[in-house]
């Protein structure tokens, strides 16, 4: 029973959505199902926060290694949550000046906005900026022209790297107009439009077929791995 009902739910939800693609009468039903899905996706964010809270509270109470960082994490989590859900420091919307809850949660100048602007934004952006360094060291340590395939990869990468900056324009600016097709900036465009399009198209077709067949198996209840492994079932 515990397994059967989820299988039916999956099957019905999937079939409704597929049907709504082909049958106009089912479109309204498809919309409603999708909206429920969107709301549930909102709950997933709450679940994510809850899980984080649970894991780190446990870490703190167990005094596990690095529990001090968990305290910092919990503090920043709870402060952000408090100022955000409480709309602390948010002024009313000009349309409803007597309702202090009517303002928007991320109003400029509010503590929630401040946390975004001066903590969230620099931290996430810098995390990703580190990739520029890693890509440099990867270039130095990992890209070896050991066979034909690697030579093709690196050669293409060079053309793109040069062709998508002004360096490419200089390097081949001496080529006459009749050979303009060989200018690096034009070569990079051809590579993108011909080889990259062909290769990417083959990859996305393959992945689309994989996704479609997996979806089909899930809807039909053939593939149940998302329900957890069979042995963990009580």
């Amino acid at each position, binding site marked *: 029973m515990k397994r059967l009902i989820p299988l039916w739910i999956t099957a019905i939800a999937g079939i409704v959505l597929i049907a709504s693609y*082909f049958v106009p009468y089912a479109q309204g039903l498809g919309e409603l199902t999708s909206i429920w899905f969107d709301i549930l996706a909102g709950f997933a964010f709450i679940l994510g926060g809850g899980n984080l809270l649970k894991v780190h509270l446990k870490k703190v109470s167990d005094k596990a290694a690095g529990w001090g960082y968990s305290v910092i994490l919990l503090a920043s989590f709870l402060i952000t949550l408090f100022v955000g859900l409480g709309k602390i420091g948010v002024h009313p919307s000009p349309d409803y000046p007597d309702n202090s809850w009517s303002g928007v949660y991320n109003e400029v100048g509010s503590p929630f906005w401040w946390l975004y602007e001066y903590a969230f934004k620099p931290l996430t952006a810098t995390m990703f900026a580190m990739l520029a360094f890693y890509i440099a060291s990867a270039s130095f340590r990992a890209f*070896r022209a050991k066979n034909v395939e690697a030579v093709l990869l690196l050669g293409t990468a060079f053309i793109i790297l040069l062709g998508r900056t002004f360096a490419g324009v200089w390097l081949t600016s001496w080529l006459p107009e009749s050979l303009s097709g060989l200018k690096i900036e034009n070569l990079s465009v051809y590579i993108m439009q011909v080889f990259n399009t062909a290769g990417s198209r083959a*990859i996305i077709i393959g*992945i689309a077929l*994989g996704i479609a067949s997996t979806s089909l198996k899930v809807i039909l209840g053939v593939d149940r791995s998302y329900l957890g492994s069979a042995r963990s079932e009580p």
Partner: protein
Amino acid sequence: MKLHLFALSVVFTSLGDAPATATPAPASNLIAQDHRKWDDGTRIDLAWDLSADDETLVAAYRISKALARFGDFQVPLKFELVEIVKAGTGEYTVADLARKIRLENIKTKYADIVDIESLEATNQKTFPVAYVFQIVAVGRDGATSAAATTPPITPTMEWFDGGRFWFLIIVVIFCGAVIFFIQLARGGRPLKVRKIAGLEAIDEAVGRATEMGRSCLYIPGILDMNDIQTIAGINILARVAKTAASYDAKLEVPTSRSLVMATARETVQGAFLAAGHPDAYRKDLIYYVTDEQFGYVAYVQGMMVREKPAACFYMGAFFAESLILAETGNSIGAIQVAGTAMPAQLPFFVAACDYTLIGEEFFAASAYLSGSAEELGSLKGQDVGKIIVGLGIIIGVIMLSAASVILDGSPGSPFGTALLNAVEYLKQVILT
């Protein structure tokens, strides 16, 4: 078709300038009927006989629509422009119409033209909508003819969207193929799948790690169990674990999700059992690190530098961390085998690893190893999909190329035109 600018400017100049000299004759026999093809009830087809002056005076036809009724309640007609079409055009499909309108929308938009109270009195929440359409011939100098108007009409919704008929057929063929092959495999018929070259590299890598007396590292991606790439990664883990068990090599699996850890433990334990070394299985080598992407990578990176595993396997869904992992692995001189269906990360694995399972190949490897009827069957079904693509492209391209050569040699050749029409049908009707 979009002639807005041109035709509007014609209309506007006529308003400002001297009175028009020649008024074109109106279009006649304007007919409105529900869209010919099956649709979702948002289209009406219009057809009309061209104005008598179509070839001389008329520049364009202006098509307008107006609401005529909410249910049984008449509404004063207020026409709004739908489109302006070139002279010589005798039909048009008006799209994006409504069949019903909600009372509250009538209240906000049409309160000035209809008596809301009497609508409310019916206790209906929605009202069927009827439209009238009007067509006016616009002369070259801007003069407009008398209008031709249709009686009120409501679009109807069919039970099936005809525009997607061919798509449905292709979906059915593909899904049918997948189900067919799964049943075939379940019935015990062996399905042949080609050898996947990367799989030998796995055995080799484990073997070398054993020789060197160092460990193997296995990363099943950073997504949770609900991602098919993680599942494929776990299937391949089973094989790696089996090889490691038979060679008596140490296998370490740090994971980024607790659920993945639980599944990986079961899988590895099973593999050690199957290889006949259940006692060699060590639970604590398969552990959860953190969900946070960079935190996880930072940990794995540090661990790799300290322990220097001789073989690294990256099998699953990866994002920006792919290059950090591959680069670190390279710097410690490990043999690396990767597999992922993340197109953006493939370059890094391909360049830095000794062997990479690319995209679909990764799933194929997983199916090949798991040997399960479902996976092998769906792989075969996917091959059917690829045959459809290949045949479709080859036939279409040959026909189109032939048509363009024939029509270039002898313009208007009936065979060439027929070919061209066939390709157009293929592209515009079947493949959209």
